[in-house]
């Protein structure tokens, strides 16, 4: 029995939801993904509760300290160990079944270990007092320690945690994907739905892994240098270049921006692979694979440098030319989205749709992603960003992109769950989850964008001036609905029923 299967089996409550079906001979592609998906949902519970605490601290005046602690933990837990890990688990399961290779070995174990250990260590650092938000705001960690706001020990612990999380996303996971796609022999018994790299359903997986590796390597170099200096292995004089705020910020955002884009590429790819399975006429064909691939390439090419829009208000320290470039490339991603919109709707129009909960959840997540995309390109316009940067608009954009991708992956999981566990989810509960999530996520996104339009600052522990508490109350209300939708989703996982037919056969069907 795989160690991953053992860990899942011995985990209280969540273990029951993801107990691996060993009767099918597919444990090699099921076990590690099951552990990753299960772990991501543990973090979702943490992130979800913290997300509700944030507005509650403002409404009940619990103090700014609590707000900034929950802000840091909520953002970090939601983005990395929940969203990225969920994507990693479902994505690897897809890849394994598409190329007929096992999801096992050192890289699989390291991917899980570095992500969860790193996130746990970062949590400890935040509880030690480090309040730096999900984007670190370098050099804030060092400045805070110098000012005595938090200890240098908490900075060292926090950077260690962040470094491990980055190691997962930039090195372990991409290398595992490359290993599965390009090395080792295909095993016929592991092939569930064979796909080639020419198909959009697999192309996005490859592009995303390449993006993570290539755009993340500079950050690995900077992060390694800083960490060695913090542990006093390297003299600070040799690490000064990496501690330059401008150097750190540009390398950080080169990766952080493309992390979101890579996750978008991957989920778009999963959508292109999943949608054809639910077409009413059983044709299993997209309207145009060429157009779907074009959308992925446009998204990739435009997004790599569009992250320059993060520094538009830094003028003239970021030259105007680079800001124009970031502006144009960001709107270029909109052309990728326009192509994707046409491909998806034309496919459904041409072939009809079986509206099962999994694919409907994917489509709702996709619609939320389009709302997010529209808000993202608007705030990448130079004129608009001068009035929106640093406001709740950006938080709304960030939350929406993470939530939309998570919603899509949770939809894709409906398709993979029976293969992993040999159990089936209830369609009625699935439908209830989708309804609640639709109201909660679109409501929260629109309210946060409106708050930003009204000048409500992000990461700001006082929503009382200028009447911003109205937006805060609405965010809490919609957050509670999102929380209820997750509760329904978990309940569905808990109550899943055994499938009588051998799942290996069904999966291959």
């Amino acid at each position, binding site marked *: 029995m795989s160690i991953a299967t053992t860990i899942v089996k011995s985990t209280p409550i969540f273990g029951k939801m993801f107990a691996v079906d060993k009767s099918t001979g597919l444990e090699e592609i099921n076990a590690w993904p099951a552990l990753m998906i299960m772990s991501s949902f543990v973090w979702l519970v943490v992130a979800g509760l913290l997300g509700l605490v944030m507005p509650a601290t403002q409404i009940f005046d619990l103090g700014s300290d609590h707000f900034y602690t929950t802000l840091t933990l909520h953002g970090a837990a939601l983005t990395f160990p929940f969203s990225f890990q969920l994507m990693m688990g479902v994505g690897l399961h897809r890849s394994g079944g598409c190329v007929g290779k096992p999801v096992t070995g050192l890289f699989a174990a390291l991917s899980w270990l570095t992500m969860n250990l790193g996130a746990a260590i970062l949590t400890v650092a935040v509880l030690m007092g480090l309040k730096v*938000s999900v984007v670190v*705001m370098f050099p804030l960690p060092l*400045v*805070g320690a110098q000012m005595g706001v938090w200890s240098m020990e908490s900075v060292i612990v926090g950077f260690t945690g962040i470094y491990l999380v980055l190691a997962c996303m930039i090195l372990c996971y991409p290398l595992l994907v490359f290993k599965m796609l390009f090395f080792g022999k295909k095993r016929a018994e592991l092939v569930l739905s064979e796909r080639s790299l020419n198909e959009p359903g697999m192309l996005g997986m490859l592009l995303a892994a390449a993006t993570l590796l290539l755009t993340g390597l500079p950050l690995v170099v900077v992060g390694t240098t800083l960490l060695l200096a913090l542990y006093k292995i390297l003299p600070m004089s040799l690490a000064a270049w990496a501690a330059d705020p401008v150097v750190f910020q540009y390398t950080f955002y080169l990766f952080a921006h493309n992390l979101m884009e890579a996750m978008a590429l991957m989920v778009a790819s999963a959508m292109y692979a999943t949608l054809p399975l639910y077409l009413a006429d059983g044709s299993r064909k997209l309207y145009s694979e060429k157009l779907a691939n074009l959308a992925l390439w446009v998204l990739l090419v435009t997004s790599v440098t569009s992250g320059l829009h993060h520094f538009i208000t830094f003028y003239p320290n970021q030259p105007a030319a680079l800001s124009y470039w970031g502006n144009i490339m960001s709107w270029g991603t909109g052309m990728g989205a326009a192509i994707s919109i046409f491909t998806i709707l034309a496919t459904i129009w041409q072939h009809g749709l079986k509206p099962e909960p999994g694919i409907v959840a994917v*489509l709702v997540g996709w619609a939320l992603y389009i709302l997010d995309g529209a808000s993202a390109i608007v705030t990448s316009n130079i004129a608009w960003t*001068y*009035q929106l940067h640093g406001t709740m608009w950006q938080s709304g954009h960030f939350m929406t992109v993470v939530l939309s991708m998570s919603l899509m992956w949770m939809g894709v999981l409906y398709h993979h769950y029976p293969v992993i566990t040999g159990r089936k989810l209830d369609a009625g509960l699935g439908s209830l989850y989708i309804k609640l999530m639709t109201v909660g996520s679109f409501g929260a996104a629109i309210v946060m964008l409106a708050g930003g339009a*009204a000048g409500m600052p992000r990461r700001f522990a006082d929503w009382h001036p200028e009447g911003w508490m109205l937006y805060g109350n609405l965010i809490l209300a919609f957050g509670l609905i999102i929380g209820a939708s997750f509760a329904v989703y978990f309940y569905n996982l808990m109550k899943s029923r055994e499938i009588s037919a051998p799942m290996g056969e069904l999966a291959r069907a």
Partner: protein
Amino acid sequence: MLDYVYTGWGAFWATMFMFIPFALMAYWVIRRKSLVDTGPTRLQPSEFAPIEGIWLTFAFIFFVVANLASLKFIPWAAASGATGGEAEVQVDFTAKSWAYDISNRQIEAGKPVRFSGRSSDTQHGFAVYHPDGRVLFTMLMMPGTTKPTSVVYTFKEPGKYAVRCLEYCGIAHHRMQDELTVVKSN
């Protein structure tokens, strides 16, 4: 009208202008083809081509127009027009956790003001709010830069303009606030 479009609320409605037609169309297509008429459509892929062309052309034109029209509202591009040969009033400031040191807090309406700011410790913002609560412009400062971050802005109306840091800078970030007074021009 463009003066409104390139504000925070203009951004909100521009987003809705892109999203709402998409949402209605997507809902209609998905509902129709999953519940009302689930059978395959007889149209051939080639018959979709004109719609595809029109849709992508419309998206492209909209994107180009929205960005070209915004050029007038980019602070550094607008600066040359705003000054109109008139000398800029210089306002220098330094941001340090959690306060601003501002060289001049009283400004005359109608005169172009160049705000030049630096940070002396960590990342900070300098956002100027209109008395009605909307953000007029925001600036990002990082320590150690050779040049100050800079914006030229001409205030139109007298009043009290709040200044807030919009870059998270630690546990008292929300208290990093100041005020500018804009008076009638002599």
